[in-house]
């Protein structure tokens, strides 16, 4: 079996093993080990792509070109981190008897299953398989959202599944219409839905059908990515899902959804020119950044805060792609990379804080957490600085690249609004985080939080922090090459 197929089989096997019973140590080792192996395979597959022809499997249904390789590596990385942190998280929750054995089995089975689905999304060349894989991630996420069995979990799960299904219904309609626009030119059978075939047949696609299909597909996959105005499921879902799963959703699936958007955008660019889908992405991205701003300012929950930050970041990526300049695309992909390196840290530290205080609501967390949980709070402040886009960290540079591309291009006015929104977001985020961490220590009459402990979860968080800081100053050569290769795919469409 080729490397690519192994990359997909390993997480699937890990998921199956995780669903069986067994002693806890065995399952923890299996999950982390399996996902570590998966990450290694992802890197190897990416290497194979960079040094030769893109690996393919199942007759071109799966194909890893530069863009797929980048997303593959990032998703594998996030999967590993999430598994490692998840072990510590679960241990702590089990110590408090918050987890039933059934939920535990689900956890160990579904985290690798989610990773499998994410990797399937990144490796898909076939638009039909892409849709099915995205739907699989949606269905798996529902189990995560209902993990804690609260009232609000049910509400969040319902909204998520309803909105997600509508979005995917739109995406399916978009896929069908894209297929329809190429009737007679795409050939027959399964391969007719291959993205590579679409790119080849691009000049001959029927314009009206293609336009309609692109609009529906972008809106549909945009719902999964969390672009405004289809983002309303995000805050609820991120709040209810346990933090390890929230990381997977916030980073992994975000990357996957952006990948889907990019594939559709490339088809549209090749057939209709860059302005149609680029304009739509630019508008959605700008709207996302604008919508996120007030909600961050008036936020009442820590994990929802991170969700709106995630909406902001996907908006930045969409703007970068939509601007239509090569620098903008590079900036967007660089942003995706830095986001994948830094966001896990934010979720880990925020998740630990929430676990220590037994709630993620601001009124239960109080303020001045620095005095109660110094290490975690420190990590959280660091992560907040990074994801807000402050120098000298990586996201600052990727945002600068996008801003420069925007001001030099035809959309200078929109870029100005974009910059204004980013500044407001920076201020809002600083206010919230500062109040949470540095504010006056709260009334000791409320429940005292658990003390911090250096367990595997904490270790993972610290490792993530080191990686995030280091990456600000030094990106390993191969990773940079990968980003450049991905940019080339997006810019040239091959």
């Amino acid at each position, binding site marked *: 079996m080729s490397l690519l197929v192994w990359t997909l089989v390993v997480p699937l096997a890990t998921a199956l093993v995780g669903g069986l019973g067994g002693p806890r140590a065995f399952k923890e080792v299996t999950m982390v080990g399996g996902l570590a192996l998966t990450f290694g395979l992802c890197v190897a597959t990416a290497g194979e792509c960079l040094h030769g022809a893109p690996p393919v499997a199942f007759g071109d249904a799966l194909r890893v070109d530069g863009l797929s390789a980048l997303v593959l590596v990032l998703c594998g990385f996030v999967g590993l981190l999430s598994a490692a942190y998840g072990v510590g998280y679960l241990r702590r929750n089990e110590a408090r008897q918050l987890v039933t054995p059934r939920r535990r089995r689900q956890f160990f089975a579904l985290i690798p299953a989610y990773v499998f689905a994410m990797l399937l999304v990144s490796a898909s060349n076939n638009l039909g398989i892409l849709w099915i894989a995205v*739907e699989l991630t949606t269905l798996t996420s529902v189990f995560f959202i209902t993990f804690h069995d609260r009232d609000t979990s049910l509400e969040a799960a319902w909204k998520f599944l309803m909105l997600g299904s509508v979005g995917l219904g739109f995406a399916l309609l978009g896929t069908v219409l894209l*297929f329809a626009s190429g009737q007679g030119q795409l050939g027959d059978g399964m391969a007719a839905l291959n993205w590579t075939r679409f790119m080849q047949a691009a000049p001959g696609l029927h314009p009206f059908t293609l336009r309609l299909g692109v609009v529906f597909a972008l809106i549909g996959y945009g719902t999964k990515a969390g672009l405004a105005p289809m983002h309303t499921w995000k805050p609820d879902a991120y709040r209810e899902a346990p933090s390890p799963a929230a990381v997977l959703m916030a980073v992994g699936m975000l990357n996957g959804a952006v990948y889907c958007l990019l594939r559709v955008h490339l088809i549209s660019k090749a057939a209709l020119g860059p302005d149609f889908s680029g304009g739509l992405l630019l508008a959605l991205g700008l709207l996302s950044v604008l919508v996120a701003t007030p909600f961050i300012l008036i936020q009442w929950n820590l994990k929802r805060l991170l969700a709106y930050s995630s909406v902001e970041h996907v908006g930045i990526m969409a703007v970068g792609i939509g601007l239509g300049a090569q620098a903008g695309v590079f900036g967007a992909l660089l942003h995706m990379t830095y986001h994948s390196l830094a966001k896990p840290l934010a979720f880990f530290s925020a998740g630990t804080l929430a676990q220590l205080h037994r709630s993620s609501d601001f009124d239960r967390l109080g303020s001045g957490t620095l005095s109660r949980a110094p290490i975690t709070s420190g990590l959280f402040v660091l992560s907040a600085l990074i994801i807000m886009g402050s120098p000298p960290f990586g996201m600052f540079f990727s945002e600068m690249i996008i801003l420069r591309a925007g001001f030099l291009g035809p959309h200078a006015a929109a870029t100005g609004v974009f910059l204004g929104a980013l500044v407001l977001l920076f201020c809002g985020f600083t206010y919230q985080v500062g109040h949470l961490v540095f504010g006056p220590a709260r009334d000791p009459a409320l429940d005292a939080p658990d003390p911090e402990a250096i367990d595997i979860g904490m270790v993972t968080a610290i490792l993530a922090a080191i990686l995030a800081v280091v990456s600000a100053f030094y990106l390993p050569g191969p990773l940079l090459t990968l980003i450049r290769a991905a940019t080339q795919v997006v810019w040239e469409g091959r």
Partner: protein
Amino acid sequence: MTANVLILCAAGMLVSAYLMVAQKALFTTIRLYSAQSLLLGIVATAIALSQGRHELFVTAALTVALKGLLIPWFLMRVVDRIGIRQEIEPFLNVPTSLLVCVGLTVVGYRCSTGFPDGARGVSHHVVGIAISLLLIGLFLMVTRKKAVTQILALLTVENAVFLVAVGVTSGMPLIVELGISFDVVLAVLILGVLVRRIVDRFESMDISRLSRLKG
């Protein structure tokens, strides 16, 4: 001949959607959805026969079995166990909803005129009805308060997408169709479980009561 059967069934699907808009009893709404799916299966079979695409037979059989029989049976069981049989007053009353649906149908028809000639033997009526069905399904989802009705609206949207698929492209590749059907069934199963839990927790299927998460 095929064109006539297609238009007859498509018009029947549209009528069933309108009746769903005016319907209050949950059981009848589920039965209307079942009839809609059966008509969809007939459309797929007719196209399969006229164009010799044998994969469409499988898809048609799947549609009838899963969407026409299995899913309605499952939903009826859910409604039975819960014991709530009636939709409550929707956000828009019935005559206004019907007016809106007429408008949406007109929009859907206008959109359909831009398509190239679809699969041979399928007129633009089928595509127009499919898009209208999609819009009506979305409208139902937004204006209805009961969980089961929202699920049925979602399923109507899926039916509409499938109708567009067979009407404009004479069917997607079989494996993809299988995957999509499987996904839809899974989604409905999960939704059914969620509805049970919601009723257990909140004593009502009224989704507009689930509004604690704001901001």
